[in-house]
């Protein structure tokens, strides 16, 4: 299985995100962030670094979730 695919968000978390993004009260929290190119690059690098650091935990959590689902399907 593609490792990057394992790291994409779960359906449940996407649904929660969609719920917030389509709530008018949260609209401003989803506007484009326009802080200039340098700060944007720094922010993106920070996000990427954070994603890399937590990736092993997320892969483990996904693997456990898939294994539990497989077990309940077998039952």
């Amino acid at each position, binding site marked *: 299985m593609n490792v*990057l*695919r394992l*790291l*994409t*968000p*779960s*359906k449940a*978390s*996407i*649904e*929660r*995100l*969609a*719920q917030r*993004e*389509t*709530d*008018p009260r949260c*609209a*401003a929290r*989803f*506007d*484009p*962030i*326009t*802080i*200039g*190119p*340098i*700060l*944007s*690059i720094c*922010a*993106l690098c920070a*996000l*990427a670094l*954070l*994603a890399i650091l*937590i*990736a092993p935990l*997320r892969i483990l959590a996904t693997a456990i979730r898939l294994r539990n689902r497989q077990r309940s399907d077998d039952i």
Partner: protein
Amino acid sequence: MISDLLIIGSGPAGAQAAKAAIDLGATVTLVDCGADDALLRNAVPDEPFPKIRRTDPAQRNYFWSVNEATEPVEDRRGAHLTPPRNFVTERAEELLPVTSDTFMPLQSLALGGLGAAWGAGCPAFERFELEAAGLPASEIHRYYDDVIRDIGVSAAREDDTAPFVITSDSVQRPADIDTNAQCIMSNYSRMRGQLDRLGFVAGRPPLALLTNGIQRDGLERLANPYFDMDFYGDSRRSIYRPRYTIEELSKNPRFRYINGVLVQTIREHHNEVEVTLEDTTTGSASHVSARRVIVAAGALNSARVLLRSRAMYGVRQPLLCNTMTFLVCTNLDMLGRPADDRRHSLAQLLALYSPEHRGGERIAAAVYSYRSLLNVRLAMEFPMPARLGALAARLLSTSLTIVGIHHPEKRANTKWIALRSADGGDALAAEYVLDADERGLIQKDLSGIARCFRKLRCLPLRVVTTPPGASIHYAGTIPQESAGEKAELQADARARLAGSRRIYLGDSATWRALPAKGPTLTIMANARRVASYAVADERAVSVP
């Protein structure tokens, strides 16, 4: 009394064929399934996207579907359909089955066919492209004009792409491009010489989007308001949908529209053609007859119906489909910078790339910015938690540049369709496999295009390949007869089914090649041409 013409399909081809025939004085019956979702479409406010985001508590109904697919975009069929457009593919897999491991087409039973959700790109084909497809260039150019005046096309006659995509003086002034596209064009102006030497030109695309309103009997359409809501609603009818033509024609007493039916077979008799219909709700059969029939159900389904009509099961027919890839880029000059909210949602720019390895053929690249499709759809693709992905999407939003690339297509033995018996009926089997040479050409195309966009300061982040069929450009399933290549089912030079006198093919099924540019304008022009032949043949007079 039976109609002069029966037209099968209400997509761009069927709608324009019907319009042409009515304008020539014929009586016309048009049949299709006609799926529609006026309820959700009418729920979309006629307001700018940013205002809707902040004010409409019901926005989730049309911005996001609870069943929104979470498969990777590379595997998704119809990834670009938003909830108000989901009706476009309603019941298509059930009623138009395709069995294939290598070909994933998008089909439609909607009122307006795939034109109910199209990107509205309207480039004309050049002479050599028309000739490769087997279409008579001088005639098609005349019908381009008719289509452009009828549906309203805006285009930039002064841009570098104009000589390759515009043949008519009847176009409206070009649509305004957004901040991101303006930035790219500014870089293009500086790099024009270098890019020209690479065979790359860019400009504003011809679009079936009104910059001036159209008003005539039975029709009112207004200029696009730049609300960036074009993926969701049909604000002011500014983007052409074939259903507008059907609605306009429905006011004409010589036009009859039968919907809720699926064509099963076509039988030609001495003086007429009889079409068997199946009611898509009850399953009951009925018949309708006309003097002549134009089959315009799309290349796949026109072939399906005609193969079934002739009981040609297991017979392989050719299949043409442009390969489509996406290049996801960030415009470095827009990173972290604000962009104006005033924009339309369609392609902002069109680039044409003619590298040496393509021997004169052009690769077409439509350039989109990203805003109203929501951050969540981007966050789905990032390999990080949803909240972090949404944050990354916000940072990238104003600089994100999506380049949709269509590659030229030619016939091959590994690309075919065939009708096979299946449970309770039949299904279209299909195979679509690119050989090593074609894959190599596509890789070279991508490398070349990426290089050109880097020169425009658009840094490629990701290449997204789509499954064969995802381009929604299909052709060549009942090709025009030629000395070199044969098929069991063919068409003659007047787009009549070979061996018949009264059955015409009004869509891209007869094409022998499929250029990379969007085919819909040419499909519509060709449909008018075919309609003029059918009417003339019925009247036994020369085509004016």
